């Protein structure tokens, strides 16, 4: 077992275990903190797959942006004086059975499929290539996403303040 395998199992365990607690803890604030560990684990998996730039973007956008936004959402939609910020749950048993069946089907499809894999050599740093792709081949998509983000921010601000 190489060091690569060990690191993979470590990050996979962090991701899966904290994701499990995200969806089972009743306290919403704890769930948000467990989500932090899930995002860290996923960023580690990205690094193992040779996507260093995506991993940094994951940390900056998810941990720095989306998670803070979610925490704000929790704080603003519950009475702060109320210590018990809990969420109710519905239909746990049918949902668990359905999701377990679905997971079984997905897992079986995953194991039965004969994936043709090549181990492509990803260079040490992907930032240069990704940047060139973004302003050459995907320039239109890049601009459209910029406009989309602007629209989303204006829309969110105007919706939230009236």
């Amino acid at each position, binding site marked *: *077992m190489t060091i690569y*395998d060990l690191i*993979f199992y470590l990050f996979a365990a962090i*991701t*899966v275990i904290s*994701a499990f607690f*995200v*969806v089972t803890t009743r306290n*919403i604030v704890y769930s948000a903190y467990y*989500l932090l560990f*899930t*995002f860290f684990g996923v960023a580690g*998996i*990205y690094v193992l*797959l040779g*996507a260093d730039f*995506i991993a940094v*973007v*994951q940390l900056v*956008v*998810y941990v720095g*942006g*989306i998670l803070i*936004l*979610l925490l704000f*959402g929790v704080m603003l*939609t519950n009475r702060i004086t109320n210590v018990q910020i809990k*969420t*109710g*749950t*519905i*239909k*746990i048993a049918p*949902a*668990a059975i*359905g*999701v377990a069946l679905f*997971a079984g089907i997905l*897992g079986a499809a*995953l194991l039965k499929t004969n*994936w043709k*894999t*090549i*181990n*492509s050599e990803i260079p040490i740093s*992907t930032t240069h*290539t*990704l940047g060139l*792709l*973004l302003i050459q081949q*995907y320039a239109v998509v890049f601009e459209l*996403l910029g406009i*989309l*983000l602007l629209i*989303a921010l204006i*829309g*969110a*601000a105007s*919706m*939230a303040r009236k």
Partner: protein
Amino acid sequence: MTQIGLNHFLFVSTVLFCLGIFGIITRKNAVMVLMGIELILNSANINFIAFAKYGNFGYQGQIMALFVIILAAAEAAIALAIVLNIYKTFSTVNVDEIDTMKD
């Protein structure tokens, strides 16, 4: 113990996806439903990047993962604005109690 390959990464993303679906179905609080959606988007991203490494697609998978992250940011901002408005109108964010359009 087999060597780490595509299957291992796909397995992690499968587990994340199913946990996200479970969260969306069972949680009542709208913010928790959003957290489930974030889990699902992350699992899709792991798939994109795993296939970018083990398939013959070059960097396209990584670019798509980048776009997914951008869309997730936009989606979270809009969704939280909607949740805040729902809280102002109904004084609750439990998705099973907001059923005025059902009548």
